[in-house]
């Protein structure tokens, strides 16, 4: 009697015990910082004296509305996000398609596409800064070799955003390619066979068999890349080696992450920085909601 009751308890509660550590850690290192940041966002608080908080209500948020630097950072985040995410996922899809062929040494190529992802942002960005140098950079050298003028990569608005996006693309394409590759290998071979029987070319197979089968995976990578793009920080920070968090003399590539860092750790306004952090969080929730709506409608129409 006792034994069987204990067995039932065990069956019922053990899973909770097993997942508990994650939720404890999440509460300590995820939930608490989130709530505390929200609390700090409602106060005026300086890093020089984090204990003294003055209640200001929603003022830190309302002032973001009139803050041109915030809007500028938001705009830059969106453009850099688009400039990097769209080509990145397109290239990754194509790359995965190629890797999915029967290749000699395929393991080598699969590891090779992942190496940029394993490189530290700092090291990679340093190399890119040299490549995109105005006076002695290799990109400008190549451009002038084919007859174009040199581009001031750090100072131009579009040029600098493109350069930052290049670093992001370089780092994350291989990672996404491997995710696509894994999904592609789950596509049943019969689909390709019947498509081939119907006379579909390789490209048509890719378009009409691979891509539709990969739709959930593509959605997943879009979500992950959007989160990554919203939080973009390391690449633009290091791209301007001299100025730190300003994102260029005209704030031309200052992302939300950089602006948050500038407010919190350069200007030492913790309250304002927290408000930006929460604004970023809310923006992500908005995007997620919009994506859900869009997806829901698509599934309805099918």
């Amino acid at each position, binding site marked *: 009697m006792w034994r069987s009751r204990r067995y039932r308890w065990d069956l019922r509660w053990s899973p909770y015990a097993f997942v508990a550590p994650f939720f404890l850690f999440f509460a300590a290192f995820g939930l608490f910082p989130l709530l505390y940041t929200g609390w700090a966002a409602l106060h005026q608080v300086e890093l020089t004296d984090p204990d003294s908080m003055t209640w200001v209500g929603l003022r830190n948020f309302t002032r973001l509305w009139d803050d041109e630097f915030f809007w500028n950072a938001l705009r830059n985040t969106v453009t850099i996000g688009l400039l990097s995410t769209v080509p990145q996922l397109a290239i990754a899809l194509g790359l995965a398609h190629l890797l999915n062929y029967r290749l000699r040494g395929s393991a080598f190529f699969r590891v090779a596409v992942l190496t940029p992802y394993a490189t530290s942002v700092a090291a990679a960005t340093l190399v890119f800064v040299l490549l995109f140098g105005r006076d002695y950079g290799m990109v400008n050298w190549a451009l002038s070799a084919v007859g174009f003028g040199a581009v001031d990569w750090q100072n131009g608005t579009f040029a600098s955003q493109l350069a930052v996006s290049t670093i992001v693309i370089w780092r994350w394409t291989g990672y996404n390619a491997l995710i696509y590759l894994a999904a592609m290998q789950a596509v049943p071979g019969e689909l390709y066979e019947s498509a081939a029987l119907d006379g579909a070319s390789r490209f048509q197979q890719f378009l009409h068999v691979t891509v539709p089968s990969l739709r959930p995976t593509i959605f997943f990578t879009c979500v992950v890349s959007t989160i990554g793009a919203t939080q973009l920080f390391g690449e633009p920070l290091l791209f301007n080696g*001299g100025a730190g968090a300003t994102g260029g003399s*005209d704030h031309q590539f200052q992302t939300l992450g950089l602006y948050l860092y500038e407010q919190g750790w350069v200007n030492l306004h913790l309250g304002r920085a927290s408000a930006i952090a929460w604004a970023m969080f809310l923006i992500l929730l908005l995007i997620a909601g919009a994506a859900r709506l869009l997806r829901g409608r698509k599934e309805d129409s099918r």
Partner: protein
Amino acid sequence: MRVRARARVRRTLATTVAAAGTAALLLAGCAQDPASPDQGAPAAGASGGAAQTTLTVGVFGAFGLQEAGLYDAYMAQNPGIRIEQTSIERNENYYPQLLTHLGTGSGLADIQAVEVNNIAEITATQADKLLDLAKVPGVDKAAYLPWKWAQGTASAAKGGATVGLGTDIGPQGICYRKDLFEAAGLPTDRTAVGALWAGDWNKYLEAGRTYKAKAGEGKAFVDSASGVMAAVTGSSAQRFYDDQGKVVYKTNPAVRGAFDLAASFATDGLSAKLQQFTPAWDQGFSNGSFATVSCPAWMLGYIQDKAGPAGKDKWDVAQAPKPSNWGGSFLVVPKAGKHAEEAAKLAAWLTAPAQQAKLFEKRGSFPSASAAYKLATVSGAQHAYFGGAPIGEIFAKAAEGVPVAAVGPKDLVIAQNLADIGMLQVDQKGRSPQEGWEAAVKAIDNALDQ
């Protein structure tokens, strides 16, 4: 002992490598107990059984105290003391951490280094958490440059305690390329070069115009307009704050004058349009793309590093138009430390003239204790790479002429935005000086506004 916060950024790769190295060391360190006194203190001769006191020193970057052998010397003199140093590579990371530690009263080293651009904020907001070091035996106010002593002292309203003892400073000269000067028909002897612009920054601009007229295309006179601006503001008796601690940079004619003068270098095409402490700037040294650069004492080693052996005997250093300072550091002792009294003694010893002279001899950090200038290691110092220039003499003269300027809590933020927003827009984006100034003011207003 670098000096501007942003000087650190250039070490990105070094940091990465160092981080990897540190990780390896940490892993190795886990294998044994590092705190065990009898295996951890080779220099202290601790086996005598005397009770050991371990003092920790927190610094940023390659501060040099350890590298110059000062800790070892102190431990040899004081067998009961063991010194451990923790270092964070970049001041941007070090300083916010120091502030949070001071706020919570935990995680602090017994002695903490503070960069000159942060010292006013420390004296204004943290003085009650730090020891007054003026009262520590062996500390002699008269041995220090008066302006350096003033920087480390809180205002009378905040109690007037001297919480920071000065380590190094950054008196400036003008480093120039002899070969480029010769090609442009300018004098090459450092006394004659110094005489070209003695007493007036405008003469420096004039020399630049003369240079440009003769040097031809592709050769710039200065590395960057913001470098000139830093040097000119560093020679001003009033900068961003007035004596009452009010922000006056917007209305202070000295700041606007420095901005406009430096902007002339950009608009006249005398600047190589580089940003300091970026890889492109480093390449400029080795490629000789500019003829002069305002160089604080700590920059000489950097130039030697970047210009390489090929630049030897091409570079020289002359007196700057006016005495000016850029950079330097302080040591503070938090009250929350376990051994505050012992730490204060160590801080006093580390910043005493004899030790500062040793730091200069070994590491090139220029002493803030003027008493050290009489010591032969300083007064007779020559720099072989810079044509045997008498750097002790040149920089001591500059250091003693630097005016006592009020530094304010947000000096760094103001200086950085003026340079990296305002002046950079003029220098690199070709905006007008007025547009650059307005952009900088807007950014500073946003940063200072609570």
